[in-house]
């Protein structure tokens, strides 16, 4: 299963990069969202998928799923959520101020050349 997951993760990364290279700001943020999904799944996969029980202590169970990657992912989910929320509001504000979401129109001012 880990090998299948490696390909899925590669696919997610590919889609994320393709979206990030497009010119719409909203699509770029969607791309970052997919990128973080890919990273989270990568963390989980690299920890191994062989555990047969959730990491909650219960009598008689010995083969838990690895809890450490899960803790790391939980932290990463929250942080990426915070950053995504911030980016979204930033994008929303830039729509209001600049009246565009086209990245090609958001170049640095010519005055600085």
């Amino acid at each position, binding site marked *: *299963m*880990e090998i*299948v997951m*490696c*390909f*899925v*993760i*590669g*696919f*997610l990364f590919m*889609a994320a*990069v*393709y*979206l990030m*290279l*497009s010119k719409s700001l*909203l699509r770029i943020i*969607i791309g970052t*969202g*997919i990128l973080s*999904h*890919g990273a989270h799944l990568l963390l*989980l996969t*690299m920890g*191994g998928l*062989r*555990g047969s*029980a*959730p990491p909650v*202590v*219960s009598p008689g169970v010995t083969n*838990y*799923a690895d*809890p*450490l990657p*899960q*803790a790391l*992912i*939980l*932290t990463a*989910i*929250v*942080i990426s*959520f*915070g*950053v*995504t*929320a*911030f980016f*979204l*509001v930033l*994008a*929303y*504000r830039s*729509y209001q101020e600049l*009246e*565009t979401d086209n990245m*090609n129109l*958001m170049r640095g001012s010519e005055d600085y*050349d």
Partner: protein
Amino acid sequence: MPFVYFIFLPMLVALVIPFLFKKVRGIHTGWFVLVVPVALFGIYTTLLPMVQDGESNTSSFDWIPSLGISFISYIDGLSLLFSLLITGIGALVVLYSIFYLDRTREQLGNFYVYLLLFMAAMLGVVQSDHLISLYFFWELTSISSFLLIGYWYKRDRSRFGALKSMIITVFGGLSMLGGFVMLSIMGDTYSIRELIAQAPDLSNHSWFIWSLVLVLLGAFTKSAQFPFYIWLPDAMEAPTPVSAYLHSATMVKAGLYLVARFTPIYASSEVWIWLVTGVGLITLFWGSFFALKQTDLKAILAFSTVSQLGLIMSLLGAGAISFHSGIEDNTIFKYAAFAAIFHLVNHATFKGSLFMIAGIIDHETGTRDIRKLGGLMSLMPISFTIAMIGSFSMAGLPLFNGFLSKEMFLTGMLSILEFDLFAFGTWGILFPVIAWIASVFTFVYSFYFVFRTFTGKYKPELLPKKAHEAPIGMLISPAILGTLVIAIFFIPNLIGDALVKPAVMAIQPYLYTSPTDIKINIAAWHGFLEPELWMTVGIIVAGCLLYWTLTKWQPIYSKFPNWLSLNRLYDSLMYISEVETNRLSRFYMTGYMRSYLVYMFTGIVLLTISTVFIKDAFNISFARLAPIRFYELIIVLVLIACTMTILLAKSRLTSIIALGAVGYTVALFFVIFNAPDLALTQLVIETVSVALFLLAFYHLPKLNRHENRIKFRLGNALVAIGVGVTVTIVALSAHSQKLMPSISSYYEETVYTKAGGGNIVNVILVDYRGFDTLFEIAVLAIASLGIISMIKLRLTKKKEVNRIENE
């Protein structure tokens, strides 16, 4: 006496000069400054008997003891000669500047601070025995010279000249630093004397030639040798006292000092002899030839300085031959080093006075253009006398000290004929020939300088001011130098014994134990049979002929193509470095975020993939894999389908919904891979995120509402596929090569017994690794505060402008 502290005396005085300039307005600031060089000159004079006995004075104080860096003042004959030149000419220049620069109109505070800084730096250069402190003072001379050339900073030409000299000399200075560092590594010491002591071992080192070339680059740029002389004519925009001091007597001789000082280390090399002698001769010829093209008095003198520096340089190179035992009796090459030092002193005297005269003419007539000048002899008789003394000495006529050193120069060049090592037997004949031709041109431009200015027809209509003799104060300094020019001719051996012989001993330490061993007697008369006499006669005859026909052949200078000149080369180098690099950076700094992302992703892909294959790190292991279950494959297909939907969706709304679907599928993965906490968090957060996305979508401006697919772009697709492949390869390889087991068994065993909890993930989050959680909370807090301030703080551009205007 610890002479090392005297180096810093001018710097200390420079600290109080601005206060004196501001507070004591009635007295010209220069009078206060004058005390410094005069006092130092007096102090250094007391050392003369010491160096005549072949002794030296060393004093030091530590700068960075842990790195072995200190200021070491080592005064031997060579250092003392230069120190006396610096302070002596310095005193005369300060005296001259008191009358040259106006007390009320000029920023004298700046001028004297720069000048004193330069004086200290120069003393440091010639007295330092430590490579690093030598470099420190060397760059300080470049900087203070930059400030002095740009003294009238409101003029374009001054700024251009200052920048040009700065770039060229700093280029040389940095090369020299490289050479010094190599030298210090080779010899494992920073001390020049210790390096000289182990010179025979150094020459076998593989870096020897590199350090030689780099050190020579420093010397050639500073001493305005071919092809680096181009900064010197442009440095003539400096006030004339500066030109007289820096660009004739002292700074441009720092390179000569460097060559002389390092001769004992490098002279064993053929490259050194060829480079120093050859470049010196080329510079000598080039400078003397192009001096006649100039119409500005100071430009003529600048080219003449270039040429005379080349002369001294070539003599130093010839003097280095004396280190080789190629011929039985090599006294004749010892002669060359002597001649170099002797001419160095002579040049400082006559060139200093000539610059001061050029300044006087500029000051009293308002122009330095030789085409507008003429007939000043009767109006400015004293200046004319001094200019004539200086020019005749420069031309090498008898009764003036230039004659003596020119005779010695010709002797030195003729003696190269007898040296048959290093292919000198074949090419040696060129040396006296070029030297002779250059001497003829020197003769012509010396006459050109003095007679075009002072004889001929007086042209008052062309002059901005009515010409008259300069004030007596301005004439004192050139008069003293002019007197020296004649005095040295009549008593050359006094100077020779007191100054030149100790200096020669420092250049050729292996040959002598005491200055009195040097059996050289300067004589004006060699006898009829010596070839030097007939060469001099030839110079005078050919020179007179060329001068009389000057108007006939001078137009050939305008025939030289302008684009071939070195200045043109420098300008185009500057142009390329400014415009072309700007164009280059604009080529890749497009301003589009996409470009930068492409650079980054491509870089990541190339670096990672090539590393994987170079290190042969890729492999797949099918051991220890979890089994593939049917419903897992279904979820995988759903995930891929949702992702494809995002990529292909026409409307943004669809892609937002599809992104939500991706998030929920990921949550499903968490469920089937036994991660309940993750699944919970993922579900909640995905819901909130989708809501936020929809909010952003809703507020899209109307004008941009028209929906369209992402246009397919092959480049983007290739980059994206590359990244995907890279991630897959890295993930597969990493998973297949696990080197050690997980540490999680510790958590499983102790979670209840030590931490008192059952949910291992939650206990890790708040107990084992609680710090992560703390700062994750901080991240959320910062994000929410940031969002609030982004929404609340709305300073639009217009309001901002109004606010600034109201303030």
